[in-house]
């Protein structure tokens, strides 16, 4: 047992005995300490006991002191009778003083406790008030409240849907609460009559409810014994704040849902118009060219026929790329992009990209500058190839004839950077974020160039799936040029630590 527990248990015996220990000592040193000072010593004891135990024990202690004093200091010595009027007066004044001081001390103690409690509550409230506006959803609000109530965990309990309501000991002890109301509340069968009863229930049973859109989502129960110490007004204010926050978070969630629904709608119509245009255009060419060959094949020379058939092939390949883009886009959108990563070098990726770009590099050419000491990439090769392909495909569309498209691959800190620079019309600064949006094209309507507007979106999606980043910058080599400033697309990929850098075991040689 701790000292405190010992003292508490034996408070009364100690309280009564102590004067009988203190007084003889005082008696023995009475030459240096006149007896009129002894009552002052008793007062100290009384105040101490009044503050730390109860005022009743303080009074008993005072009486015990009274008898001790009369035993040791008042004539006749050795008896608790008092003959001297002086002594009697001293001790009676002492008793009176004790009672007054004792009550004052206790009252003071209670006041201090109340003030401390108020301060404490205000601190909790301030903390809560700071956290509540930052809460994003119901869970945040409840968490904030739980944290705020932590210092109180002995006295109050917060029960929410996630806890097991019915079996919680606090609930079982709520025998006063009308069983039917309790069940209805807990099962959220909130009929108008029950809702009307809630304030009354709260008052009668010190049970407080947390609402969100007219649904009870939490129940706060304060242990009745400690209710007097809790400044109720502050507490109710706190609760009110929490309920307001719950309402706010729910409204925010509803608003978010509406926003998403609207976005999906916009996306769907953009998709429909894109498919309509981007499928029809190549198909028009294909149907036109092949029907021409079929109808007028006899009148066409071999070169014309070949030219038409080449066109059909090109348009069909364009359709193929577009279909692939759409598929990639859909997979990205549904989060179905599963990465199957392998170790590849940047050169190997570029080799495949260049092969696929061959039919498109008619009026332009690529220059390549790859740092030979780049570490290998741990990536899903086909996706990275598609991402780079899309960027260069875009660059070709906007580049003038005979312009080069420059590819630079370097290592910067812990990233590998693939920079693709072109000499095209460039992208103004305020549009550099927008170009990554789905279906964003440079020109609108029938006049727009052959692009679905998905290429960069897909590129960004695929790179980000690898933990990388894509950004658009000005072409540093063409800053002065106003007509064709071009732009530079930077693909950054994180470097994964690789087993290759480790020593090959001797057995592998």
């Amino acid at each position, binding site marked *: 047992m701790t000292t405190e527990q010992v003292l508490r248990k034996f408070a009364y015996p100690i309280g009564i005995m102590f004067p009988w220990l203190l007084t003889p000592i005082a008696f023995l040193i009475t030459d240096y300490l006149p007896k009129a000072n002894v009552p002052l010593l008793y007062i100290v004891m009384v105040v101490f006991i009044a503050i730390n135990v109860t005022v009743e024990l303080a009074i008993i202690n005072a009486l015990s002191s009274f008898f001790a004093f009369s035993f040791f200091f008042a004539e006749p010595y050795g008896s608790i009778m008092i003959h001297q009027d002086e002594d009697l007066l001293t001790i009676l004044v002492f008793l009176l003083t004790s009672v007054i001081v004792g009550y004052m001390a206790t009252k003071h103690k209670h006041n201090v406790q109340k003030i401390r409690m108020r301060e404490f509550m205000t601190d909790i409230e301030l903390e809560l008030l700071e956290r509540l506006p930052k809460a994003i959803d119901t869970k945040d609000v409840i968490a904030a409240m739980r944290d705020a109530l932590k210092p109180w965990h002995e006295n109050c309990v917060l029960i929410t849907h996630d806890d097991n309501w019915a079996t919680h000991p606090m609930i079982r002890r709520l025998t006063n609460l009308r069983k039917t109301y309790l069940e209805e509340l807990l099962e959220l069968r909130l009929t108008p009559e029950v809702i009307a009863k809630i304030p009354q229930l709260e008052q009668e049973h010190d049970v407080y409810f947390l609402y969100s859109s007219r649904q009870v989502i939490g129940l706060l129960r304060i242990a009745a014994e400690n209710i007097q110490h809790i400044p109720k007004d502050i507490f109710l204010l706190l609760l009110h704040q929490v309920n307001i926050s719950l309402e706010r978070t729910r409204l925010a969630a509803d608003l978010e849902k509406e926003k998403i629904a609207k976005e999906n709608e916009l996306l769907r119509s953009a998709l429909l118009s894109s498919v309509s245009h981007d499928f029809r255009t190549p198909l028009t060419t294909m149907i036109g060219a092949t029907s021409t060959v079929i109808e007028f094949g006899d009148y066409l020379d071999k070169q014309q026929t070949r030219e038409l058939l080449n066109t059909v092939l090109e348009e069909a390949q364009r359709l193929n790329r577009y279909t692939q883009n759409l598929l990639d886009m859909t997979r990205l959108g549904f989060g179905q992009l599963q990465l199957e990563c392998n170790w590849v070098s940047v050169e*190997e990726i570029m080799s495949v990209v260049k092969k696929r770009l061959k039919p498109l590099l008619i009026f332009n050419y690529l220059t*390549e500058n*790859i740092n030979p000491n780049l570490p290998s990439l741990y990536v899903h090769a086909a996706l990275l190839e598609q991402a780079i392909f899309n960027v260069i495909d875009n660059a070709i569309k906007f580049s003038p004839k005979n312009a080069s498209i420059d590819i630079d691959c370097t290592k910067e800190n812990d990233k590998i950077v693939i920079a693709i620079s072109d000499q095209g019309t460039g992208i103004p600064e305020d549009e550099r974020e927008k170009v990554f949006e789905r279906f964003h094209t440079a020109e609108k309507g029938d006049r727009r160039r052959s692009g679905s507007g998905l290429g960069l979106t897909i590129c960004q999606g695929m790179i980000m799936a690898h933990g990388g980043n894509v950004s658009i910058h000005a072409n540093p080599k063409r800053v002065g040029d106003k007509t064709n400033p071009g732009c530079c697309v930077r693909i950054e990929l994180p470097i994964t630590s*690789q*087993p290759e850098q480790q020593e090959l075991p001797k057995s592998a040689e």
Partner: protein
Amino acid sequence: MSKILIIDDEPQIRRFLQIGLTAQGYVILEAETGRQGLALAAEDAPDLIILDMGLPDLDGQVVLKKLRDFFHKPIIVLSVRNRESEIVQALDVGANDYVVKPFGIQELIARIRGLIKAFGPSVESVQRFQDERVLIDLEERKLTVDGEVAKLSRKEFELLKRLINNAGRLVTQQQLLREIWGGTHVEDTHYLRIFIARLRTKLGDDPSNPRYIETEPGVGYRFLPIVEN
């Protein structure tokens, strides 16, 4: 005259393949379903099979496995893009090469030619490869680049030998690892990458403009020039 069996459920695809391949001098057999394909392969013993992985009655991998029970000539699979795992699995089960749909006829013809020759009646192991820069003599185990002799370690030589013996054709990572390093090292693709990088350096081959060794990421490697015997 070589016989090619086409197992594909799309009539238009079979049609254009039939026209194109017949024009190249091949005899064409056609099957619409996996079961039909298996039957024809057993009865008519084609010299090469083109197998579409997306058949209506049986899964392409199943047909492939069943074919390999009795058919030991080359098989090319047709697959859709973004299904690398399917391609790698097919190669493991026994396919020799693959073409991704949609494809142009030239790509397919190149693969067919290389494979039929490799599995042809008069097949001898390749002994030499030579072009204006490089001379590889497999018998002497010598590599000469721009007139200078380069030394090859035993494993480097084994790797180069296998690639050249399958010149023009795909060799899977797993096959190379299994044959050169052993069955327990089938997952150690970084061994392979390091050795390929060494070979490339010795051959003076730029990986971003490969002339000799081409990588198919996640799948395997191809020695590019078709080597005539």
